[in-house]
């Protein structure tokens, strides 16, 4: 009897080991259990560390989960006769299962510290520096050496162009709330904190486009704070930068018909309106403009470092005029084409919660 029983339990434990090996192999094959392929050098180091942590985690998971299930099924008893041996503890076992996890976490800490030092290392002279400003609710990328600025709107996210194969430094700044610059393929994110500048380096080896978005909850438009990183060959990047420099920036997105109608035909002097924006709100909730005549709209953005614009939409929500985005404090004058009588809404494209009504009569 005992020999048969021990053979049975040996077969069972062999089966268990085989099952564990199978699961182990299975887990390492499922792509979804891993982060995406790393686009950057730094991301590749993080990926290597992830693979190590993941392998150890899977082994521990299968071992401990196996022990729990084994204990439950092996020692399940429906009859409740007698008492099992009353074991109160075992000091050797306690020492073992304190020391072994201690050793495992020491190893993990050592490797993650080493990886941290490479990932956080900064180049003395990066090939390119870009200022990244996160604002509610989009991004602005500035190339200070070239004098080029790219600014995003919720429906037209910006592209951060960088040269492939070269080290790029990002200086992260915020004027309002906390955001986080996150590109999943970098396996990396860094918070964009008002009141301080966070800096990190990265190097992308192959040209390609990588999507990114804000990872730190920042209010209403958080889910729309997307952008992409476009890595180009250095020659293509230089060409892109030169082309950008040639066109005045920042410009309204394509499709916004700014001033498509000819200036007012009739009345000699055009009407003039004014509107201000401060603390992420328009100064007035309603404006009145004359019908069928072009007018000028003086827009005063008083928010330090925060971009706003004025977008006039008709009752159906179609944009009839979209002003350029200006970063405060700044004042601009929009020339609004002649509008038919009716009720319109005006909003800030950057901050969809800023709105008011425009009555044209």
């Amino acid at each position, binding site marked *: 009897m005992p020999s048969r029983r021990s053979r049975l339990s040996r077969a069972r434990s062999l089966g268990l080991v085989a099952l564990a090996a199978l699961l182990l192999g299975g887990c390492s094959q499922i792509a979804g*259990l891993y982060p*995406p392929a790393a686009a950057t050098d730094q991301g590749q180091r993080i990926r290597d*560390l*992830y693979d190590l*942590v*993941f392998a150890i*985690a899977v082994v*521990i*998971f299968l071992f*401990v*989960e196996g022990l*729990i299930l084994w*204990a*439950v099924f092996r*020692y*399940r*008893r429906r009859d*409740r006769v007698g*008492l*099992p041996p*009353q*074991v*109160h*503890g*075992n000091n050797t*076992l*306690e020492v073992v299962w*304190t020391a072994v*996890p201690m050793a495992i*976490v*020491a190893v*993990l*800490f050592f*490797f*993650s510290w080493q*990886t941290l030092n490479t*990932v956080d290392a900064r180049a003395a002279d990066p090939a390119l520096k870009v200022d990244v400003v996160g604002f509610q609710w989009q991004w602005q990328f500035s190339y200070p050496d070239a004098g080029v600025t790219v600014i995003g709107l919720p429906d037209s996210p910006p592209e951060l162009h960088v040269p492939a194969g070269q080290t790029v430094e990002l200086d992260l700044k915020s004027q*309002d*709330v*906390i955001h*986080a610059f996150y590109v999943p393929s970098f*396996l990396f*994110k*860094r*918070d964009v*904190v*008002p*009141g*301080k500048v966070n800096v990190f380096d990265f190097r992308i080896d192959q040209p390609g486009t990588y*999507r990114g*978005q804000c*990872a730190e*909850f*920042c*209010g*209403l438009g*958080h*889910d729309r704070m997307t952008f992409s990183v476009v890595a180009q060959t250095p020659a293509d990047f230089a060409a892109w930068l030169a082309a950008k420099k040639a066109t005045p920036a920042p410009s309204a997105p394509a499709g916004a018909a700014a001033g498509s109608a000819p200036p007012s035909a009739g009345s000699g002097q055009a009407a003039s309106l004014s509107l201000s924006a401060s603390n*992420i709100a328009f100064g007035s909730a309603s404006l009145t403009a004359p019908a069928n005549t072009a007018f000028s709209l003086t827009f005063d953005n008083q928010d330090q470092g925060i971009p706003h614009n004025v977008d006039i939409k008709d009752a159906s929500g179609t944009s009839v005029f979209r002003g350029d985005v200006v970063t405060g404090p700044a004042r601009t004058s929009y020339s609004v084409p002649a509008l038919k009588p009716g009720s319109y809404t005006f909003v800030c494209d950057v901050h969809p*919660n800023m709105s008011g009504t425009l009555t044209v009569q």
Partner: protein
Amino acid sequence: MATTVLRPATTTYRTGLYEWLTTTDHKKIGILYVLNSFLFFLLAGLLALGVRTELARPGIQFFDEKLYNQLFTMHGTVMIFLFIIPMLAGFGNYVVPLMIGAADMAFPRINALSFWMLPLGGLLLFSGFLTGGAAAEGWTSYSPLAQAKYAGMGTDLWLVGLTLIGTSSILGAVNFLVTIFKLRAPGMTLFRMPILVWTVLVTSVLVLMATPVFTSALIMLFIDRNYGGHFFDPATGGNAILWQNVFWFYSHPAVYVMILPAMGIISEVLPVFSRKPLFGYRAFVFATSAIGALGFSVWAHHMFTTGSVFLPFFSLMTFLIAVPTGVKMFNWIATLWGGHIRLASPMLFAIGFLTMFLIGGINGAFSAAVPVDFALHDTYWVVAHIHYVLFGGSVFGVFAGIYYWFPKMTGRFLDERLAKVHFVLMFVGMNLTFFPMHLLGLAGMPRRIADYSPAAGWSELNLLATIGGFTIAASMLPFIWNVLVSLRSGVEAGDDPWEGNTLEWATSSPPPPYNFDHLPEIRSERPLFDQRHGLLGSGH
């Protein structure tokens, strides 16, 4: 034989509403805590269903961002502050005086006060929905997003509500500590206390040290918003990261406040249903204390990506805290090992705790490796982690406790068949909901977004999680039905239905006011076991 004579039983539990509103009896207050917390559990669960419904498919279908942000903010806040923490405090209230052979808590009136602050605080939190929008900055309420410039009046209600709830917690902690240190029955030395009492003791120390910091931070933010305090707003010379430091200095220990008593509950259930003592009682006590102590040195691991943290220190401490947690896991397994295991409903949920909390422990270790956290922080991976800890851990622990002590509280058993349906639905539902979130996080889905692009490739996993969410909701139906039916016509349980180890099973079910006519002799952490089998049988 040391026999303690206390005031004899007088009245029964069939008392009116007035009695429930004015009671200072720790058992009634405990039941009030449990009922109140369960109500908020259902409400916060509905909010989570709202979140899951909106995320089922890409696009904005049911809730716009404005409402969506309120849904997840209130879901997190209510689950943590009005469900898990007070639910466990409720068990503590009901069970701790019974377990240490006391007649009541040390300060019965303060006990009633700390309970009644909870529904009031909850009312304030929810009243935001009627005054132009509840708080919508996430349960972490980071500054400057929570400043008056960006957040409406719902945030003020949130701050005032949480200040009340925090004060209630602090009062409760003082009450527990005095009760445990001063009111133990003769013979009940510290190292003969049931493990649940130990976990409540350590939890109370955590609350006493951390919650006042949090309450101060809440008041500072309130001053910032309403009286120009400039503590946390960099636009006016404050510091945004300061809020995160004080917030997490409380909120990380708060995670242990939410898990230690649940660990205590299953440390009572596992020995009873294995018919063995808890393996390594002293190691367990030391591990609990170690978790409590280390818990104060890991708060900044929530802030690895801020660029304002000394990373190696907090990484090391975070790795270290896995060790005492691992010790507990092995002690639990060793308790099962060689036992006579009976899979009654409390045991099912306790084993559910073991299998799921294990995942919550392991996926947390990923974030201790700082560079890996750079990838995972603020993604759905973190949402998966916290739910494997707080749902897989705390919620399974809570239900183990409900099935275990329901016969003590009411004198009747809950139905075992309905309990199994409840368990299976909840277990399957939670894994369907939260496991896909690991994959979503790895694929780069940030938390707290109302919408995502159909091109992102996250649609199927989100749909799966939503189906899981509704499965969890469905699991509540057999449970609620079970409670309602069993209260009327459940099988009578008697004083000691499970062959328990601890003193609460030495009195009637439900226990009379002031709990005990007389107490058995206390010579170990299992006085009832000793009484049943003699000291020889218990292996001393």
